[in-house]
Every structure is written in C-alpha cells, then in structure tokens.
C-alpha cells in the first residue's frame, strides 16, 4: 500500500470513530448549498449517512487499485445520474467533505499533507466519475 493510501485510510478511520462525521458532512453540504437538500429525500438521513460512509471507505480501500476504483466510479456515476447530480456539484461535495474531515479528524492528526492527499484523491475520483458515459 502506498503512503498516500495509508494516510487516506488512517485519516478516514479517525474521522469515522466520530459517530457524527457522516452527519457533519451533510450538515456542511446543505448549509453551503441548501438547494441540494431536496435531492436527498429518498433515504432517511441515517440510511443516507451509512451509505455515504460505506462508499467513502470502499473508495479509499481501492485507491491503489485502478480496476477496483474504476468499478467504484462507474457505480457512483450510475447512482448519481438517478439523483440528478450535475458536474458542478462535485466541487461543492468536495469542499464539504474536506471541511467535515478536517473537523472530525481534528487539528492534531489533520495535517497539510493529509489535506493535500484528500484533495488530490477526491479530484481524481470526481474526474473518473465524470468521465464515465451517462447511464
């Protein structure tokens, strides 16, 4: 496993030890972009947060394995199409994700290196999702 993958994994596991982390992400996302809230009503907030945490963990686990990552990107693209998510929204989600991670991981463990690794990884995954043909 690369050192970047290990850093992503470690910081995510720290964040997930805080039960509030998935809710924190959605709070930040909806606070910054209230127009997104109606897109997330098919699932209860608890179910949505579990799905988010699981998907995030699955992506981080496959970050060093291009084939697995591609499969994850394909699945996300298909799911997001059904939600009506548009390309510009990926930037908003990325900002909320980094902000929630920063708060949940805490200043002791959240380093500039961690923020750079997450920003780079998120950008790569978002590009891979956007590169998938529309479902």
């Amino acid at each position: 496993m690369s050192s970047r993958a290990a850093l992503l994994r470690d910081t995510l596991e720290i964040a997930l030890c805080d039960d509030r982390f998935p809710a924190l992400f959605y709070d930040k996302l909806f606070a910054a972009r209230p127009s997104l809230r109606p897109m997330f009503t098919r699932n209860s907030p608890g179910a949505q947060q579990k799905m988010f945490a699981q998907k995030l963990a699955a992506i981080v686990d496959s970050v060093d394995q291009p084939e697995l990552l591609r499969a994850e990107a394909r699945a996300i693209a298909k799911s997001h199409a059904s939600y009506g998510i548009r390309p510009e929204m990926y930037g908003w989600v990325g900002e909320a994700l980094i902000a929630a991670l920063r708060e949940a991981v805490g200043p002791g463990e959240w380093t500039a290196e961690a923020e750079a690794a997450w920003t780079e990884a998120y950008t790569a995954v978002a590009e891979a999702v956007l590169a998938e043909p529309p479902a």
Partner: protein
Amino acid sequence: MLVWSLDEPHRLGECFPVEEAVCLGRGGPLSDDPAPRGGFFRSRPGQAAPCPPVGNARVSRLHLVLAPEGDALRVRSLGRAPLKINGTLTKDGLAREGDVVEIHNAAVFYVSLRPRVLPAAPGVGDAFGFGEPDAFGLVGESEAAWALRQAYAFAASTDRHVLVLGESGVGKELAARSIHGMSDRHERPFIARNAATMPDTLIDAELFGNAKNYPNAGMPERAGLVGEADGSTLFLDEIGDLPEKSQVHLLRVLDSDGEYQRLGEARSRRSAFRLVAATNRAAQSLKHDFLARFVHRIEIPGLPQRREDIPLVVARILSTIAAKNPRIGERFFERRAGALAEARITPELVSRLIRHPFTHHVRELERVLWLAIGCAQADYIGVTPEVEGELRDSAESATEVAEIGKEALERALADNDRSPTKAAKALGLKNRYVLIRLLKKHGLSAGTDSDKDDR
C-alpha cells in the same frame, strides 16, 4: 455469528468461522496481515455460501485477530473502534461460547460452537431469503432452527399424530401450522382449538360432534372438531389440561383408523384427521396410553437454546410492528429508496437480549420490545431504565455479579460519595442499574446521581 451491524444489517446471521488464527477487517487482505483473512459464510444444511468481505466503514482495514485458545477464543483488537467483550472494554481478551464480542457501534458478534456446514436436512425446503422467515413463519438460521424444520418435515411426511412440547411462547402453534403446511393435507383448512377453554361437560360434544336434536330438541347437528378436521390437521393446544377421562375418550379415534361416534348417534364414522397436540407440561403428565398414541414428539427449544437467532427474531418482530403501526415505522426505522428498511436498535439492547434468560420466549421478547418502543426518548430503540428492569444476564455473568457481597457494596458506595454510577464502575459492573438491583437485594440504598445519561 454476526448479530448486529451498523452499515450491513442485511448480513445478520452470517458466520465467521475461527478454526485457526484469522484476521477480521474491512475489505480484502493486506500484505502485513499477521494471519490469513477469515471469511463470512451463510451456513445452511449441506452448504456454506461464502459472502463478501466486511464493508462496514467503522470496522478498520485490520481490526481483530482471533484464534482458538483451549475452549475459548482469543480476541485481539488492532482497530480504531474499541473492542468490548460482554460490554467490557478490552484490547485483548478471551471469549467463550455464549459471549458477545462488539466492535464499538460497528458490529456485534455472538460466539457459538457450531459446524461450518450444518448437517443435511433432507426434505426441508430452503427457498426463502437468508435470515428471513420460512414459508410458515419460523425465523432462524441456527442449528436448532434447522433441526426443528427437519423434525417438522419428517412428521409432515408421515400420517401419524404429533405431540409438540415446549414452554409457553416458544411457538407451538407455529410448529403445528408448519407440519400442516408441509404435509399433503395443506390444502384443507387447519382446525385449531385450545383444549383448556373447553368446558368439562362439553368436551366430548366439541370433539366428536352430536346428532340433530341431541341432547335436546332443536340442537343442530354438529360435525365436531374430529369431523371438521377429516382429511386435514386438528391442532389441540394445552392438551395437558384435558381431563384424563377425555384423554381416554380420544384413544379409540387416535388408533382405529379414526373411528368415532357423534353423541346421540349409533353408527360409527371415520375421520382421516391428524392430531397435532401441544402442551407446556412434561410429556409424562399425560395419561400413558394417550401419550403412546403420539408417534412423533417434537420438543421446541426456547430462545436461550437458540440465542444466535434472537437478533433475526427481533428484526422480524420490529418489522411486523412497523408494518402495522406506520408512526412507529416512521420514527424508528431507516428508509431506503422510499421503503422502510432496518430498525434503529442499539447494539447494547441486542447484546442484552441475547444474554437474557427468557422464560416466555418470543412472547416475552415481543413484550420487551414494545416496552423499549414505548419508553424510547429518541428515534432509536435502546436500553431505557424500564427495559433494564426487565432484563437480566444469563447464568454465567449473573454468577459473577452475585459474588459481590454486602460489604463490597457498602465500601464501593462509601468510596464514591454514594454515587451509584461511580460505585458501579468501581465494582466493574456494566451500569448503575445492575448495582441498584444488588443494593435492593441486600436491603441497601444509594444516593442520587447527577449524571443520569450513562446508559
């Protein structure tokens, strides 16, 4: 066996065999795993279907290392979410059969000794979802649940009378319905009656029917239960409450090709019925020649004999409650793609229910769940003080608690400003309610706590 999972509630009942040292963690193996990765299986008679690795986000990539050690299981935690064995935090501990191992707020496992592949069960259908109720409503993937299904299937394949034994609340009528449903008689109506509710003077008329105008003018002709059940199944519950005289009256119809007479009628009739009788008393309490008519005797195990099924039964009861009470569903259940999904139930409640020594079984479990729903202060079902009052631990841990004497209790209270919470912690008890029970037992009382939220 997985008995609670935050992210993967659909995987309850899956087994994680530990025959040698194995690692448990999220996703596939890592290059630095200290032992081979263990796998999850859905174990049923004659098969063990492998399942995907853990996808639960709160479980670390490498979380537990488990290894057999004598008659126990050594459990070592390398993950971030804390490990608890029977509710006590530890990094490295031993778990035995009947114990509960929890990765805090991520997953709960019940430790049981069972074969990886359950013995083949010829004639038993398994065309129902894993962990779901079977076609007749029995829920369970334990060895005991599958042994029951096999016993029902065997009894159903024959035409002989069946005696179902078991404590109140174990599901004796469900057993009778299963036997009827699996038998060639399943297209005919299932006739059920509680023998304890029949007035002594009318038992024969209820069972065998009567001729028209007998015993009084104007009495309509009645087929009786034996006649109604011709070609089908007659279920008599609480058969142990049937007076001996009535047991004698049934002897002939049970072994002479169903020959019987309606009251007030000279001619004999025949009924090709099969009797499934049930009692919560010992079989020997029945008259010996009556008992001898039951070729098949099926003993239904109580929940303490199939503890690993309790979470599946809980899920079933809660989903039935939610289906009939939309407000409860809305408040306590997650919703996925618009449909009700899993209930929000705390891992602590599941762990406590698994260790509770049930005496009224499914009926008692249902009552505790209703109590937990009724007393819930938030949008999840957990252990409230009211629920705590209903729950006890199974014998093993109860023994440890019982060893705490009056002197130790008084000392712990004195050393901790008479705070029950602090004293309970000092004594290594799970919570203050266990302490309060012990204090009552010894005629002691504690002070009041300022912190009431340590549930």
